[in-house]
């Protein structure tokens, strides 16, 4: 742990854009947030909202041929990441900032044993011997509770189940004691019972290691169970931010409210046999990001929208105790229960 105070990661007014045949896609359109040391921050939203591109921007993994960070600042431990060279970024990735993705098979090398892959990361970043690297790999596999870890060191990714591969990814990501772990839909491809195991493991390891986690997901259940603070994104913009309790208690952005009412729920009392209450739909579709969005991006789908919403982009305002929301009509939304 470094002694410098303040957030470990500060993202300011990030704009990430892609050039396509249809024009420039503003995938991330002015997003700011902090990640405090040791906290779990959730970034939630639907496909195309820019949550993954935000993560890729932090890691500087935006494909150079098509995309770029157009403006904004990303500071890690006070150091500006957007201007680092690729070599400097390589020293950071997998070491002080690491990541896990949805599909572990695409991130693991199929022709190397898992022991070799974890050891390679440790040797490269910490400059230890191969022997020490392998010992560290064993410790890590044991830490993520892979049974018979000594033997698994010499297995290849295809010999492992999906849940086990994700455990290996977590072991590798944590092998150099990173300050920040970015997890992009880490349990989306897993079965329900395996997802529960991996989520429990991530929370437990976070407590143990003090690594801050940025958890990117579309799943409100996963957000509710694992995060402390949540950023809600829509069409490349941050529309709401609050502590997880506040967000689920009193969501203030009409989009967040819509999302929460659109999901079928298991935790509310079962209805009388046979009746199937209607889910609340969010009408319409997400906007096309190749055209500049005037006003609030959610306005065309929003029941509260006024002329002003369609004309002027709403700023993020503090609705109390750090609960940020970008909505002109927040007072009406609040009253509307």
């Amino acid at each position: 742990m470094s002694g410098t105070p303040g957030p470990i990661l500060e993202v300011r007014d990030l704009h990430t854009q892609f050039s396509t045949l249809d024009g420039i896609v503003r995938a991330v359109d002015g997003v700011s947030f902090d990640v405090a040391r040791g906290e779990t921050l959730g970034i939630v939203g639907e496909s195309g909202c820019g949550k993954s591109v935000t993560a890729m921007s932090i890691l500087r993994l935006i494909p150079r041929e098509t995309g770029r960070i157009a403006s904004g600042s990303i500071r890690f431990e006070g150091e500006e990441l957007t201007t680092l060279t690729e070599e400097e970024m390589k020293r950071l990735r997998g070491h002080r900032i690491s990541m896990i993705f949805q599909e572990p098979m695409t991130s693991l090398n199929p022709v190397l044993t898992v022991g070799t892959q974890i050891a390679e990361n440790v040797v490269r970043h910490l400059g230890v011997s191969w022997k020490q690297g392998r010992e560290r790999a064993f410790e890590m596999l044991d830490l993520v509770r892979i049974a018979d870890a000594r033997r698994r060191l010499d297995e290849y990714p295809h010999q492992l189940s999906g849940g086990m591969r994700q455990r290996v990814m977590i072991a590798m990501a944590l092998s150099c004691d990173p300050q920040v772990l970015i997890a992009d839909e880490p349990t989306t491809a897993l079965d329900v019972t395996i997802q529960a195991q991996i989520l429990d493991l991530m929370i437990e390891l976070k407590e143990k290691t003090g690594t801050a986690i940025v958890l990117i997901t579309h799943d409100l259940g996963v957000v509710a169970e694992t995060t402390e603070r949540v950023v809600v994104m829509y069409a490349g913009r941050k529309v709401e931010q609050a502590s997880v309790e506040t967000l689920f208690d009193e969501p203030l952005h009409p989009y967040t409210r819509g999302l929460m009412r659109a999901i079928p729920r298991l935790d509310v009392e079962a209805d009388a046999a046979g009746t199937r209450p209607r889910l609340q739909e969010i009408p319409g579709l997400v906007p096309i990001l190749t055209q500049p969005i005037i006003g609030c991006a959610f306005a065309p789908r929003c029941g509260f929208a006024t002329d002003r919403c369609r004309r002027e982009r709403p700023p993020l305002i503090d609705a109390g105790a750090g609960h940020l929301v970008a909505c002109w009509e927040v007072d009406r939304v609040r009253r509307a229960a």
Partner: protein
Amino acid sequence: MSDAPVLQVEGLVKHFPIQGGLLQRQVGAVRAVDGVTFSIRRGETLGLVGESGCGKSTIGKVVLKLIEPTAGKIVLAGEDVTALKPGAMWTHRRRIQTIFQDPYSSMNPRLPSGTIVGEPLENFGIARGAARDEQVAQLFRRVGLRPEAMRKYAHEFSGGQRQRLGIAKALSVNPDVIVADEPVSALDVSVQAQVLNLLIDLQEEYGLAYLFISHDLAVMRHISHRIAVMYLGRIVELADKRTLFTQPLHPYTEALLSAATAPDPKRRGLRKKIVQGDVPSPANPPPGCHFHTRCLYATAQCRVTAPPLLEVAPGHHVACLRRPVGGDPGPLSIPG
């Protein structure tokens, strides 16, 4: 809901051979579906829920006769279709249609969407030319698409709209049964609600029977009337949804329900840790009860005897040796 089942499946088995060796002889079999029995009535949704590899999608394919069963019986609207050859099956295909998870992969990218949706109408000789176009326009309206969109191609639609196209196509021949395999899994939450609502409306309007296949318990509870929980090729529990969610009797059902995340931070940490480990391979399932390797309550008997699916209470079927007919539905004890 009328009482006569529109789809009956009895003792359904589907094994996929595993070939090996120089001569590619059969060296084993993936027992994808291993003796499954259920029925669906008109206007009813039967949910098939389970994790990957449990055989739920294979059941869907077999009842559609896209693949042939190894054993068992499929009765569609009173007629045994199990042994029908593709030619003879063809006339029955009107009765049973399907909706896929990813409708895009089932749509010809070179045909306008109106032609795609209208294809079954022509194939079955229901309507042609202007009459067909009129019916397709009506189908478009019914599923919430503008009839002008008939000229557009599949790639010009969003994921939710494509699922609507898939639904329109399935509806076009006025089927009795629709097999829906993860129809909303690829959709965003806000769009998922639109499609689920549409499916429920259409069911009520046309008396459709749905075989609804999904891994998502919340979606399942929302849309189903009855739910069958599958594990490694077998149904382990079958009940109406209220019973299943309030009084699950099979340890695997209990594990599935407790593993599901809830969108409520206050419930954090309440999740009981019930199952450990992974689902075993269906090519080499454990003997006895398939679930015994992960079950807290398994006894020596469970490791050798496969439990039959028994009706322990009216309409509530469970395959667990520790849940005898008329037994105490309370919590099981963990054997010492």
